């Protein structure tokens, strides 16, 4: 089993598998590896879940992914598998204020239906019963008997703690500065705290994957962008908190807060000397406007904070989940802005890629990096995925 990770005694300055990135994907992979008996170390430049993994809409419904079935199978089990609460709640509601919105939802729901998930249309009365503060202008809705939502930061922390409980190790505040190679294989990483050896390397560092892969001479085409959300004070709990509509996505948290996002994203410069700020902008007033349109009965709820997160996207908006051929002991795990909900499944896939070299439960061939082999170098400019230099001016 050359190049495969295997169980062995922990080494003080290294690990069988090193995962770069303590976000939800890296920590899920770390947990899956640790619970299968593999010696694993997660290196995180800051605090677990501090980037987009800990600040997002919390949705667990991704019917367009080959990992969808596994996502749906695992979420209801996660609290007991991890031993820490994720606040997972089942099902999602879609509210349409016009026919175009309904048509868009139905295109995605059709993908779920093809994979065995079920749904039911809701008329205005049924919708009002489930979501008392919804707009009278809603033409109807859809009850999805799949998907759901969870608390992002609590889920990330649950993965981290559960991984540690299984013997996996977490090293926060550690920045990878280089990758060590010998005879065509990765042998370890250099960090601002010294060198760590490994047999297999997993790059799960979100927007930083491009920079890390470049150290191996591998091009992973990623563009970073900032997106934002607003959060209200708690309101009386809905029966199903995962309600999307009117061009915004989000959820009512178990505490009762409404957390909603959407609207323009800001493409960021790839090589900023300092990490980009996770600022909120004037967009928050437009988010509030759409939330009031969707939920007029909640118009009195006070907005008490805002979030912003930095996510990465590949040119086709789809993950890169693959094991490289050169160096062949490296796994790339970029979830391309749809990582949170898929994390229980993507972590399992990364475990198998790292341990066995291939994923046994889903066909990931379409998510291989090689689909971008012919990508022109100026793809980002061609797509206009660049920051407006005078944004907002």
């Amino acid at each position, binding site marked *: 089993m050359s190049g495969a990770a295997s169980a062995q005694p922990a080494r003080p300055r290294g690990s069988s598998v090193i995962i770069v990135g303590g976000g939800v994907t890296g920590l899920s992979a770390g947990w899956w590896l640790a619970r299968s008996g593999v010696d694993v170390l997660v290196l995180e430049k800051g605090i677990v879940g501090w980037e987009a993994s800990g600040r997002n809409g919390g949705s667990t419904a991704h019917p367009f992914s080959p990992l969808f079935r596994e996502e749906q199978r695992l979420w209801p089990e996660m609290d007991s598998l991890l031993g820490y609460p994720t606040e997972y709640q089942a099902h999602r509601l879609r509210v349409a204020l016009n026919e175009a919105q309904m048509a868009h939802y139905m295109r995605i729901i059709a993908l779920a239906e093809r994979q065995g998930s079920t749904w039911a249309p809701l008329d205005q009365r049924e919708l009002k019963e489930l979501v008392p503060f919804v707009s009278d202008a809603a033409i109807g809705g859809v009850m999805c008997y799949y998907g759901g939502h969870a608390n992002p930061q*609590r889920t990330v922390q649950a993965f981290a703690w559960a991984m540690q409980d299984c013997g996996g190790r977490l090293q926060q505040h550690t920045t990878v500065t280089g990758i060590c190679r010998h005879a065509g294989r990765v042998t370890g990483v250099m960090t601002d705290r010294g060198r760590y050896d490994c047999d297999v390397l997993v790059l799960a560092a979100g927007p930083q994957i491009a920079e890390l892969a470049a150290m191996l001479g591998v091009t992973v085409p990623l563009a970073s962008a900032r997106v934002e959300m607003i959060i209200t004070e708690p309101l009386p709990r809905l029966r199903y908190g995962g309600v999307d509509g009117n061009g915004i996505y989000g959820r009512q948290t178990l505490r009762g807060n409404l957390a909603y996002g959407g609207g323009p994203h800001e493409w960021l410069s790839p090589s900023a000397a300092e990490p980009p700020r996770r600022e909120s902008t004037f967009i928050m007033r437009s988010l509030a406007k759409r939330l009031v349109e969707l939920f007029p009965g909640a118009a009195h709820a006070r907005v008490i904070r805002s979030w912003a997160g930095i996510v990465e996207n590949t040119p086709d*908006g789809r993950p890169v989940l693959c094991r490289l051929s050169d160096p062949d002991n490296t796994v790339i795990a970029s979830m391309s802005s749809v990582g949170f909900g898929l994390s229980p499944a993507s972590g399992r896939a990364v475990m198998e890629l790292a341990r066995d070299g291939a994923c046994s439960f889903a066909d990931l061939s379409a998510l291989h990096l090689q689909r971008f082999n012919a990508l022109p170098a100026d793809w980002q400019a061609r797509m206009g995925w660049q*920051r407006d230099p005078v944004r*907002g001016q």
Partner: protein
Amino acid sequence: MIGTDPARLDAAKRPTPSAHVPLLVVGAGAAGLAAALAAAAAGVATMLIEEHPVSPELMALDVPLHFGQRMARGAGNAALMERVLDSSPGLAEAYERGIDVQLGVCVWGLFAGSANSPDAAPHLVGLADGVRSWFVSCDRVIVASGARDLAIGFPGWEKPGVMGAQAALQLMQRYDAFTGSRILVLGGGPLALAVVEAAVGKGLAVVAAVEAEEASRHDDSAERFRERGVAFYGGWVIDEARGSIEVESAAIVRLDETGKPAAGSRTVLDCDTIVMSVGTVPNVELLDSLGCRMQFEPLRGGWVPSRGNDTATSAPNVYAIGDCAGLGADPTEEGRRAARAVAASLGMTAFAEGEPEPEPEPEPRIERPHAANRSVQRARVWLQAQIAASGLDVCVCQCEEVTRRELIDLRPPRYLRAMVPDAAPSGRNLQALAADGPLNQDQVKRLTRAGMGPCQGRRCREQVQMLLEAVGTSEPGAVPLARYRPPVRPLPLKVLAAEEESAALRDHWVAWFNISTQWLAHWEAKPVPFAAPGQIPVIGDSE
């Protein structure tokens, strides 16, 4: 070949501000007024924003100060406006000098042109009254947002009648709308003395001043309280605010040489109001949320913006003066200094040679206790004393009902424990979290919810910070400042909601990135969308 992404944030999506001003001053206290008057005298057109009078609904949330439900209700807006004007002669002068003064308007957000090109002016400033919000733009901002009270919890401190010193001084001196009549003051420093003097001046009874530190340890403070007919309890703390609903009395205890409550010392004092006068916190929320570099100054109230000599912060074109920039400075001098810097940067001749600077009217009515500069240390003494007296099962975060023990044990919040009975992870407490790296207040906030409520952490931030320091056995300031996020005032959705949007924003709104292939089955290979040159993929109007 350059493509475009119609859904990205760009200049065309920027809102049209209601107005543009060369200079906007946030806060019409002594510093803000001095700055606005001096800038106007130098020919800089200035808008001066003052959030007082604050609506009773907001006061009831303890925003922006800890009012403790001791405000008189029923006074109409016009009457309140008049009182605020009467209590501040400088405001009338500001009107006379042509300054655009806006009372009862809050600043809930400052937005730079771009974080990644921060020198881009003008800034957008988010304003709101009780009914609507709007943006103005400006070339320069002077933030003079003052200070708020530092709270330290004790049993019963969530009862109506427990409040902060700044709130008490505002209600007594500015609003003339204070409803307490028998006051217990917590604290023995200049701030507590200011509250005593204001109360005595109003003919109110002050039953006692309680100070955790023994009087002998610092100067003649006991004497200064006794001179005003107020009993001084040095080396005592409060044990409980008593009363069926509101405060009706307070139990206090003496701490012995070992720092434990002395047997038999518990004493009950009749009072209807307990004013926490232990410390003051610079109001840095706008500055921090804008991204100004911050530093911890233990002698100036804690976290304050880093500034140059001209009061400029690290954020281009943003200046900070008065208490929000650090307690204890001369607000008038700082205000004039900032005005000079702003005038010069705008190419105005600030003040002609030999011409005297305009003297703003002094602010005689509101006490300005300058010597709050021990408050950071004093607060830590108080917290330790309160823990010795009342233990850990005391509320820290009132909004989310988190106790000191729940914080230290990193217990999942109450709503979650109610739903998932076994949600309390064993062995995962603050100490264990600290083993994984330095403690971070924002991380602890998300796990316990301490600081996540509608008061936006105004009553618990410093307590949480001090408890994290205590568990991590670290110096004051070692725990990073928990980030502030706009809106820095809790605004109803209908108030925050944009009334108008640019056509570009409206027409190209997407819930998520407009990458058409992202929403199709990922297992079916699709060419990267730009394969057809110039063709722009656009997904529907949502998701």
